[in-house]
């Protein structure tokens, strides 16, 4: 119970500081917007093409944005060594990860939801009637990106060349998410929409596996 209340308090702090500074969220949104616009200029997509590769480009943009967004989540705790204060205070270090994952998922989801109409307009795709499926895919994909990314951010925060290390580790590790989420999104945005439950199942399993691994071994990632 203390674990959840610790995580809730930490999540509240993460959200409060982010909405106060709006540094991370605004940067990420602008970054995804630029990437999506550049993709649309580069490929000049016709409707058929955009249904085929548009969702892949969208998820690539989300992945790039995530690598940008995840970097500071532990680096910010190093400024005044607040991570040590958290480690001393929390009942279980997993609470720190739960809060960071929750905050990163929330910020990523917000970015994705803001970008969805922009993407639909630029790539001439419709998702009418498929919003619940898209939201589910976005949620599971974002949770997977945040879970794996938060773990890697904790590792890379203590390393030299940390700014380069995170994307180098993150992008290959998240390839399965990219593939599964893209497949599901392609199905949902096609002219004859179909929900690919196999992809949804894969995303859910990925999330559960990484959350369990963090619960079991996360403590070691926070050690000096």
């Amino acid at each position, binding site marked *: 119970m203390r674990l959840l209340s610790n995580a809730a308090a930490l999540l509240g702090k993460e959200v*409060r*500081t982010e909405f106060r500074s709006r540094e991370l969220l605004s940067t990420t949104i602008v970054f995804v917007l630029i990437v999506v616009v550049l993709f649309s200029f580069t490929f000049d997509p016709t409707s058929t093409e955009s249904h085929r590769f548009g969702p892949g480009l969208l998820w690539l943009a989300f992945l790039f944005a995530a690598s940008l967004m995840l970097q500071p989540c532990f680096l910010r705790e190093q400024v*005044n060594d607040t991570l040590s*204060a*958290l480690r001393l*205070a929390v009942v279980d270090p997993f609470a720190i990860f739960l809060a960071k994952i929750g905050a990163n998922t929330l910020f990523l989801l917000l970015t994705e939801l803001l970008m969805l109409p922009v993407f639909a307009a630029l790539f001439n795709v419709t998702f009418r009637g498929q919003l619940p499926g898209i939201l589910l895919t976005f949620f599971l994909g974002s949770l997977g990106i945040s879970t794996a990314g938060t773990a890697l951010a904790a590792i890379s925060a203590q390393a030299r060349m940390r700014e380069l290390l995170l994307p180098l580790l993150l992008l290959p590790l998240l390839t399965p998410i990219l593939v599964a989420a893209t497949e599901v999104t392609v199905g949902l945005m096609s002219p004859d929409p179909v929900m690919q439950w196999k992809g949804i199942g894969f995303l859910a399993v990925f999330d559960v596996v990484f959350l369990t691994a963090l619960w079991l071994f996360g403590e070691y990632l926070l050690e*000096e």
Partner: protein
Amino acid sequence: MDLPSERKIGLRFTKIEKRYGAVYALKNVDLTIAPGDCVALTGRNGSGKTTLLRIASKLTRPTRGELSFSGMAENGNPQAGFVAHTTMVYDELSAEENLLFFAKILGVVNRAQRVEQLLREVGLAERKDSLVRTFSRGMRQRVAIARALLANPSLLLFDEPATGLDPEATAWFIERLRKLRDSGCTILMSLHGESEVARLATRAVRLEAGSVVADTCAGATFQSIFLFAGG
């Protein structure tokens, strides 16, 4: 008000060694701190004081050796109050928000009252709504001290605690430390040279190049402590 004996914490460092690559931060440190001791760690820069404090807080794992606790902490981690070199508080939150946040995580009961009381004690009640990033070094240190005292810990670890404090705040801190020591808190603090805070110590331990080179037990005179603290 004395701490009940079951709340008092003792520490025992057994052959503690800490290496960073080929560099030894601590070498073969054997040290027993009885419950209720107030120990001043002295020594030059890089002598291993901070590393020993971080090992005592369990933030850093020793390369070799063992740290054990006696008293209430035998079955787990003691909740130590730690004031480190860095303030360990969030710049983007106000003083009050910082303390309320940590009080919530620590499970402090009546946290609004406790936070208000500590803010008054450290002289920041009037600036409680200001963001910490607008504070001077001394004011940040006062927030850090308040944070460490939030949960009434029985073990206090201070790394040069008077850093940045003005004479008025230092006087308050010394008085508070005296009360904590007299109430049975176990205190381990690193100090640089002769200071007013050192007068509160009941024992002084001097480190040199990661090893304990002198240990003046309880009952030592202030003069001998100052001799050790002298640099």
